[in-house]
């Protein structure tokens, strides 16, 4: 009985107070779930929008070989992991899964290289600075990934 009172007096565990645990949990979610989680409350939304390491995990979680440390500064410089995921990794994942009829769970370095190359081209096009490319033409190099697949 005494124990029960003590338990009731002990403060309940509130996840929003433990941000590092929250991040650890969010790291294990997949893309759509992360999107859903971002709608839960403002704190989670801010966290998910701003913490790039979550997206880094999401991008390269399935890579069989660990990536060299030089990848991160390059990705960050080109626009960050969130943009990499939204622009390249997610369409690549979904497109490859569709075409091979198998949920591709493991990525080799070829997929990584391909995604990074496409991401780089996209960033280059977003740079602008050339008068000839109009606003629509820049950053549309990845549009082919967004087009619906003719299944």
């Amino acid at each position, binding site marked *: 009985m005494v124990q029960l009172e003590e338990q009731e007096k002990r403060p309940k565990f509130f996840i929003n107070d433990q941000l590092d645990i929250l991040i650890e949990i969010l790291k294990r979610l997949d893309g759509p779930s992360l999107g859903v989680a971002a709608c839960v409350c403002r704190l989670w939304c801010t966290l998910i929008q701003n913490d790039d390491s979550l997206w880094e995990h999401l991008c390269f979680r399935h890579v069989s070989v660990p990536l060299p440390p030089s990848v991160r500064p*390059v990705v960050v410089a080109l626009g960050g992991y969130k943009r990499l995921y939204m622009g390249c990794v997610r369409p690549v994942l979904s497109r490859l899964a569709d075409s091979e009829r198998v949920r591709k769970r493991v990525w080799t370095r070829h997929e990584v290289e391909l995604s990074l190359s496409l991401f780089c081209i996209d960033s280059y096009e977003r740079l602008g*600075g050339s008068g*000839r490319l109009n606003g629509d033409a820049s950053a549309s190099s990845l549009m082919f990934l967004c087009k619906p697949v003719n299944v």
Partner: protein
Amino acid sequence: MKRNHEDTLRVGGVSSGYGVGGSRNSGGADLKGECSSMSSGKGKMWVEEPEAGGMDELLGALGYKVRSSDMADVAQKLEQLEMVMGTAQEDGISHLACDTVHYDPTDLYGWVQSMLTELNNSPNDPTELLGSNQIDGPLLAPAESSSIPNIDFENQSQIFSDDDLRAIPGMVACPQTDPDSENSQKRLRSSPIGSDSIPALPPSPSASNVSESTRPVVLVDSQEAGVRLVHTLMACAEAVQQNNLKLADTLVKHVGMLASSQAGAMRKVATYFAQALARRIYGIYPQETLDSSFSDMLHMHFYESSPYLKFAHFTANQAILEAFSGVNRVHVIDFGLKQGLQWPALIQALALRPGGPPIFRLTGIGPPQPDNSDALQQVGWKLAQLAETIGVQFEFRGYVCTSLADLDPTHLETRPGEAVAVNSVFELHRMLARPGAIEKVLNTIKVIKPQIVTIVEQEANHNGPVFLDRFTEALHYYSSLFDSLEGSAAGLSSPSQDLIMSELYLGRQICNVVACEERDRVERHEALAQWKTRMCSAGFDPVHLGSNAFKQASMLLALFAGGDGYRVEESNGCLMLGWHTRPLIATSAWKIPATE
């Protein structure tokens, strides 16, 4: 489509044939109306002539996938179509609702007969077309020309005494008494053009009576018209080859009309080829003084809408990357910099390679700009920004020259301890237009002493000595190419700007291959085997492209919508990208053998 037939017969010139894409002709109502009225026309006719067996079997035997019970539906749809046409806002359509007459699509004789009657009544009487021995000057005013040779119908017992349309092989336009041989000839045509391949043709054209009418609106079976279209194109090219320009002129207008009855890739290809043939016939050779910013823009759209350029860049970059492994100073010479889209991926790959990035120097070669702006420097500046972001030491130099043969290797400033790569994507074939130019370029490359030379070229032989062979090759090649573009855009509801621009980009190539000659004809594509012979005899050794390039290329293609049609093939160390069974571009890599 109906309106277009009207226009061509009234105005006389094939205005749609010279337009780009003829987009105003497309529309959902066209095809639907065509199909339903086609089958309803059939249905009406067969009801009057009862034959053995049920009507369904008859319709099925003729290739129509419709049942007699559907006829009521079809008739209703026809009425709706006529209602829509009657209330349509566009000019020139509403009168079609009351003026339409449906013809049996297999009865070409009756259709052409009615057209000729109409033409004979028209005020413009180009009988001089038959009487004269040559074409009236290079530029015929549209009112003077007609799409079908105007023959005084009453005087002829047979419809075509003129040899113009008889020249079309397969008797597609000139029906004779033996319909079976006509169909068997059509069936034996072996090479399909594009996705509209030859379907099963109706066994025999029926000899029904067609009501006499001067209304020129006609419905044409689009599949049969596709066969006719190809035959007409070939006949026209043959006429040009034989310098029979009068015949060629007639045929090319016929092509324009037939092309408007097609849909999709077939129509676009036919339109571009007809346009190019017309230029050749009339001697209106397009000049090469094209604004390079416009052609860069088209190039950009082609890059975005199809995987060909991306494939070229990725495979070439992979070869360069492998050749540069372990080297700390690298220099790439790009024979056609354009927007520099190939290099961001290489810079990024160099940044991430084990051992860190090298010092990267890029020399971009480009044509002089008409407005004297420094386009090369702008591209170089963008690349420099990117390289700085990623952390790769980068240096850029632009080199302006009109032709690669003018390239002076001493200007390229080779530095000691630097590995050099030469990259040429769709640039070398232009050198074949002038004698001696290609040898000069290859010698220049040898003086530079590169570690690797990457060459990407179209996989087709458009440089044969005989015009007709070139034409045939080009027709097959560009049909496959347009098909693939169409396939990848299939998921979209309306043609995107990318697609239209890409087609224009290819259309200009078609124009050059067909209409130009001598130094102007720069699109002198040659097949991989020919390039291999040339490179080997110039003293280069082939470099195998490796499995990494193959895997990356395959994955890249899997990403494209409609990508099921694309194929990557490996051929003796070279990679080829093709559409279904037809390889379209080829990447190869070369090095100078190390002399002991």
